[in-house]
């Protein structure tokens, strides 16, 4: 008999879309939508940014009804919470969580992402961080509030930072927290430093894929002659199908790494002179499978209470990765998200509790792997 499944899909959320309040003031006021969407492609391989569709429009999160509508649409799609960025401003952190929290409960919570930056007193900074994230309906992992640490490789002393964060969380009455670092695989000591799990980096942070557009001398000459776009040399362009496969292939061997599911990614607005990361030939159907596959993986390999999948993103319009309804494509992507969550949830439900090969104490996986490698070598040598 199949046990019930506990698995939560979270989406990264940009809470800056508000026209009043402390976060808006701290970011200098103005129209956040204008700031996000005012970018025009300078290269022919840059896809234009999409525009918010009618369903949610250019909402103002400071307006309670608008924020409630956003949460309601996300809930209806099967999303179980948002991940908000912590913005440092004058010695304290602002998240914008106060706009969303009234609409959250145990089924839909908030988690936070912190990007470390050089500070004078790390302990004081950790206290400020915990003050900013305490008091909201949290997303729990293993019964603990969730905090993501972005770009952990910037930390001079990961173990020390982890200890500081845990102490500050305890002092802020958050209790023990669940710390997740952004890293591709469980090597490099982050888990030893005290992080509870890892999370796939964003496409721009992790470039293990072969670029779809391989450069060669001829292309270079074309660019020199003005017949090809020189931006092709500077930007990293990845085929979406290869990107998705590279994220999921041999996933169990990477260790305790939460999947980050991406529909699209193009950060050219922030890299107008080159150096952007772009996904090419994206597909909403493949995205749905990516999402469903990630859910099945998590259900199969992660302990109950720690089954999380992250979607990047709900509304990062400037990176073209949003799944919110758009003017151009309507709710197609959101529908595919809902379908992917339903499909992944069902399939995961049928697989949960299944023994994973290689994890049985009765079998020494290492010896078998060595044996198979040896046979492969012999066969290829004899061929």
């Amino acid at each position: 008999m199949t046990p019930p499944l506990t698995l939560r899909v979270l989406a990264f959320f940009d809470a800056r879309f508000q026209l009043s309040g402390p976060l808006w003031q701290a970011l200098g006021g103005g129209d956040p939508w204008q700031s996000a969407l005012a970018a025009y492609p300078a290269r022919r391989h840059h896809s234009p940014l999409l525009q918010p569709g009618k369903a949610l429009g250019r909402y103002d999160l400071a307006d309670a009804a608008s924020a409630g509508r956003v949460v309601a649409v996300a809930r209806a799609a099967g999303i179980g919470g948002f991940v908000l960025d912590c913005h440092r401003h004058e010695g304290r952190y602002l998240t914008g969580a106060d706009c969303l929290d009234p609409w959250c409960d145990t089924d839909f919570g908030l988690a936070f992402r912190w990007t470390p930056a050089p500070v004078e007193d790390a302990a004081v900074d950790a206290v400020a961080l915990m003050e900013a994230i305490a008091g909201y309906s949290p997303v729990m992992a293993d019964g603990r509030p969730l905090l993501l640490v972005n770009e952990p490789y910037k930390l001079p002393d990961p173990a020390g930072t982890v200890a500081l964060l845990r102490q500050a969380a305890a002092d802020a009455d958050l209790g023990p927290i669940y710390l997740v670092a952004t890293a591709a695989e469980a090597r490099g000591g982050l888990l030893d430093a005290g992080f509870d799990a890892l999370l796939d980096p964003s496409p721009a942070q992790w470039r293990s894929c072969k670029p779809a557009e391989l450069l060669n001398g001829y292309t270079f000459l074309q660019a020199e002659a003005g017949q090809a776009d020189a931006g092709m040399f500077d930007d990293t362009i990845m085929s979406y199908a290869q990107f998705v496969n590279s994220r999921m292939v041999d996933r169990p061997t990477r260790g305790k790494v939460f999947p980050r599911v991406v529909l699209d990614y193009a950060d050219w607005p922030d890299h107008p002179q080159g150096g952007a990361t772009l996904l090419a030939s994206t597909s909403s159907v493949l995205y749905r499978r990516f999402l469903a596959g990630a859910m099945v993986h998590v259900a199969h390999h992660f302990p109950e209470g720690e089954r999380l999948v992250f979607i990047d993103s709900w509304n990062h319009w400037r990176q073209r990765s949003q799944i919110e309804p758009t003017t151009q494509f309507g709710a197609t992507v959101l529908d595919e998200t809902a379908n992917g969550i339903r499909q992944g949830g069902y399939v995961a439900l049928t697989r949960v509790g299944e023994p994973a090969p290689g994890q049985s104490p009765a079998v020494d996986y290492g010896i078998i792997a060595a044996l198979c490698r040896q046979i492969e070598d012999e066969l290829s040598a004899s061929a």
Partner: protein
Amino acid sequence: MLGGIAITGGRMAAYDFRFSLGALTPFDLLDSATAPPGRMVWEVARRVLALAPDADAVVVSNPLLAVKGKRLAALLRDGEALRCPAVLTDAETFPVAYVLPRALFDEGLGRFLCLLSANRAATDAQLLSQLTGRIVPRRRTPLKSVAPLPRITAQGYILGDNLAAWQAQCADAIRLIRARADWRRLPFAAHHPCHAGDVLFFSLASRLVPPWRLAFDAQVVCRDYLDIFRDCGNRLAPIVLDIPPVSRTGETSDGRYFLDSLAHIDAETRGRTFMVYCRFSKSYTRSPFNLIDQARFALGDPVATLADTLYHQAPRVHSRCPRPVRPLRVLMQLSGGWPLKTYPAGDARVLVRALICLGARVTVLDAPELAADGATPATGGSTERLAALIRDHHVVVSVDSFPLHFASQILGHPTVAIFGSTFPGNSDAPRRAGYRLPPPALPCGPCGGYKACPLDGGPECRNHPPPTTLVAAILDLAAEAYGPTAAPTNLASPVLAPLAEGDAA
């Protein structure tokens, strides 16, 4: 979305139903590829009546168009006064929705809706007329003509020859009702004659549908698969088809095969049986549900909640090899119904050799070339012979093919399932002790590829689990099913077999 409307005392209440991609609620229909569109009409009508028990009539949109409830209500209000029963059409002759009287269901005639053509309003109106004993008008809606029809609809229905097949089943039913006074009691036959795995799934489904839900009495089956039909305990009566099964290459479509095969069913049987086309109306990989659940739905079971699905059923069968646990005997089927299902040849050699190095005896079905690597070739043949072979081995390892389903679902034998290009959820077995499904690592499946990988164009599917994973799963499963002594003793010091002469080829 599939709209349904309850009409109670002239008031309309609209509902929307979804072809489910995983959730099963009162508004989610198990998306069944083997259910004809008419089966969906019946199910929606059933659900609407459950939601509005006092309704006098229900209106159900044609699944091929799947108009939402509100839109359907607007179409009904736009035109002339609504009559019941009736068939609503577009500007030409395509049926948009069916207005069905409550009495149809009270009299237990709901299953006759499975016979609707869903693409010819005149034929459907005649069928409803025969069923209700009333003149059934066709009423045009403001909807423009839907012609030309696509090859595949937005809801995933494959049209093409299927349109003619649905029309033929409807026309045949009309003739039968006209000819027979006892038509209400005549049997329904599911036309699902091939292939081996599909016959197995339908057979298991027929056993899982509660008797009061089973809308069918017989199944058309190719003689080639009659042993499967019987040995899998099919509860339906067989109607044997003496022609070869439809080719998997797509040269002949399922719809065309249905039309051709009708001529090979004796006239006496056709003269007393309602034939329902139950081959694939959709691509089954669109649905996350197991093909057995899809077949159960086709046969009349609503499979309305997750608790009703196959994965929540406790295992019913249990089989173990009676031989001593050493040496471990492994039976493998590494090729499937089409080229891309076949386990990559190089990996197969590594798998066989690794097991033999570890002291296991390996028998391979339909792969004589692996004899060079130390395996014993064998042929399954009949289900009786295959069952004997399976019982003579401790563990079965198979790609998504008949031996896998037979070993795991019919016999309950220790089985390791290999899935690559196909979707495990469509055809694997429920979790139980003695079953392993090493998960395919990539999210590219199901790809629908037949001969070549749609991503890299190669002839092999790289989504198959690697030999290491399979060897680990086999040993782990053997230890679970037969005790720790079943695992090879020479795991720490395996003996590599020398390469046979000519291996380099």
